[in-house]
């Protein structure tokens, strides 16, 4: 297949058509912030952290869902992008109840790392402090909606990789929630196989094993892509 020329951050590159901007950036060690992206499952452009500027396009586009085209000129680190990344991060923290100090994922949390990366020293928006449920009904795992950022990685991994489709989404706006089956307690789900893939896919302390406490959490999001690659090899 013929390569196509593109320019990212004034760097001339040649790449295969059909790839997303995010894929090309990662291949060329160009740092792009992401939260809803998880290698191995479909991208949905939900978190809006991977926004890039494309010459000739007025609005910012998400790198994870936009495919490269010949002669595309892309910018990933302009002041405008940095401003939006900071806003998005602050809104993620303000929407639910993120208390890093007592969170099981403290020190191993993608959201916490994001805050450090964008230099979030304070949050300019009023916290909503919603009353969120902590679903402890599963025998092994906890789903704490206080810490969920609605990246839906759990939903996609459960559907696309495990094939169980236990997780889904209900409501809209700030009332949106991850649900198990048709909004039943996780422990009462008839579809959940208790495989634990959602635990590894979750970027925060929203899904965690009951058996561990702060400092013991080990999430391995990389295993999702490994699984998919192995399946392809068998096919």
């Amino acid at each position: 297949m013929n390569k196509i020329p593109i320019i990212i951050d004034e760097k001339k590159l040649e790449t295969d058509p059909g790839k997303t901007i995010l894929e090309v950036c990662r291949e060329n060690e160009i740092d792009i912030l992401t939260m809803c992206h998880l290698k191995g499952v479909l991208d949905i452009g939900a978190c809006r952290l991977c926004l890039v500027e494309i010459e000739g396009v007025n609005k910012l586009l998400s790198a994870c869902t936009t495919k490269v085209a010949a002669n595309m000129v892309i910018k990933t680190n302009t002041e405008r992008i940095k401003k939006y990344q900071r806003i998005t991060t602050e809104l993620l923290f303000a929407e639910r109840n993120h208390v890093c100090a007592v969170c099981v994922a403290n020190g191993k949390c993608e959201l916490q790392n994001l805050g450090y990366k964008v230099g979030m020293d304070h949050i300019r928006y009023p916290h909503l402090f919603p009353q969120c449920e902590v679903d402890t009904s599963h025998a092994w795992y906890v789903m704490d909606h206080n810490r969920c950022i609605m990246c839906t990685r759990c939903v996609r991994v459960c559907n696309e990789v495990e094939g169980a489709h236990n997780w889904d989404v209900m409501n809209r706006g700030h009332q949106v929630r991850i649900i198990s089956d048709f909004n039943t307690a996780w422990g009462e789900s008839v579809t959940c196989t208790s495989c634990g893939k959602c635990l590894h896919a979750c970027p925060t302390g929203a899904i965690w094993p009951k058996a561990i406490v702060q400092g013991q959490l080990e999430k391995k999001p990389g295993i999702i892509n490994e699984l998919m690659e192995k399946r392809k090899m068998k096919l």
Partner: protein
Amino acid sequence: MDKRKIMISPVTRIEGHANITIELDDKGNVSDALFHVNEFRGFEKFCEGRMYTEMPTITPRICGICPTSHTLASVKACEMIQGIQPTYTANLLRRLMHIGQNLSSHALSFFHLSSPDFLLGYDSDPAKRNIIGIAEKFPDIALRGIRLRKFGQELSERITGKKIHIMGIVPGGMAYPLTEDNRKALLEWIPEAIETVQIGIGIIKKFMDDNEDMVQTFAPSATLYLGTVGPNGEHELYDGKLRFIDEHGNILQDQASPQQYLDFIAERSVNWSYLKYPYYKPFGFDKGFYRVGPLARLNVATKMRTPLAQAEFEIFKLLNDGKPVHGAFYYHYTRLIEALSDVEDAERILNDPQVTSLHIQHHGRWNYEEGIGSSEAPRGTLFHHYKTDETGKLLKVNLLIATGQNNPSMNRSVLEVAKQYVHGADIKEGMLNRVESTIRCYDPCLSCSTHAIGKMPMVVEVKDRNGAVIKRLERF
């Protein structure tokens, strides 16, 4: 009868979380004193709905001085819910970290906060009556005090990587082992730490000799005492059974399981303070005031666990012919005897061949709906009591904190000091400092602000019955 009130506000340095009202009768004599705690935090309420296994992480955030005690009480409650016990090595490491916290807290209380009163004098210039004043006049003592605290904090840091709000104490044991390098590094501290504590004991003993009248009459409330003891009545901080004694030293309860605490302790709310009033249940609210903390622990103990501390303990016991010592001032002395025991015990543990073992955690899961854990925090016996549903979600949390248990006695001690130093509207700076010092004897954790350099800002107002201010004294 015409009543007048003296208001001391705020007692604490920064937040102003506690006020004192001293009520005068129509002759200008003190008739009552109310120690108001104005701070409300609501930990028991907002922990409801969380998983019980999160409590060892959440509850240490109550306090930056005694987080390890909260973690220990919490993991013990979790272990009761799971029905498991920690490993031998985990117990050693927990004990070591608890010793470190106790030592650090006692060093802070004595060298940073209280030694200015003893070395510079209660009525010396308030601007210099602080650790900076000590550093200027007695630089070696100030440095030793700071290093003793550092040693205490290193005992946690070298095991878990953190000085305060430690991680790593988990249900069933510990998440991190102690390495051989860290064990050796900690052992190197022992000689200096023992020497520093003994210097502190020398300071307090000299002060007690020079100020015998004041020490004897300094808030000598005769109360009951509660403390944790080992199987033979020995002094215990980490794990043991409860002992209650009366004001004459008679044992009221012995070897009582902390899980039975509700059989002995009840709490009552008052309408002028957020702090509850716990009391010894069999004696009722009016006669059941008891104290916890270093003074209580040494009053209830039959002996210490280590030789140097035992020698000092025997001198302490002679103060009242083997009966309980009631003066609030002796909290300082007992704190240092405990510190001596801490350092000696740390040496014993660090020399235990099992201390660096990697067998540090037993694993368990939810089995029971209720868990109760206790530990001896620097300020006294601490209880955590959790009730969960069958999934491990917390339905009810009760935290019985040491300072809460000292609350009724603190109130009474303030009243006794006020009776000695307040007569009508005649209030002097010395009185303010003595009221403050009385509270500091208990080293209360209702606010970390008493752990601050310098003087406490106070406003004392003498009010008549209708609230009109007839005299005002300020100190900022």
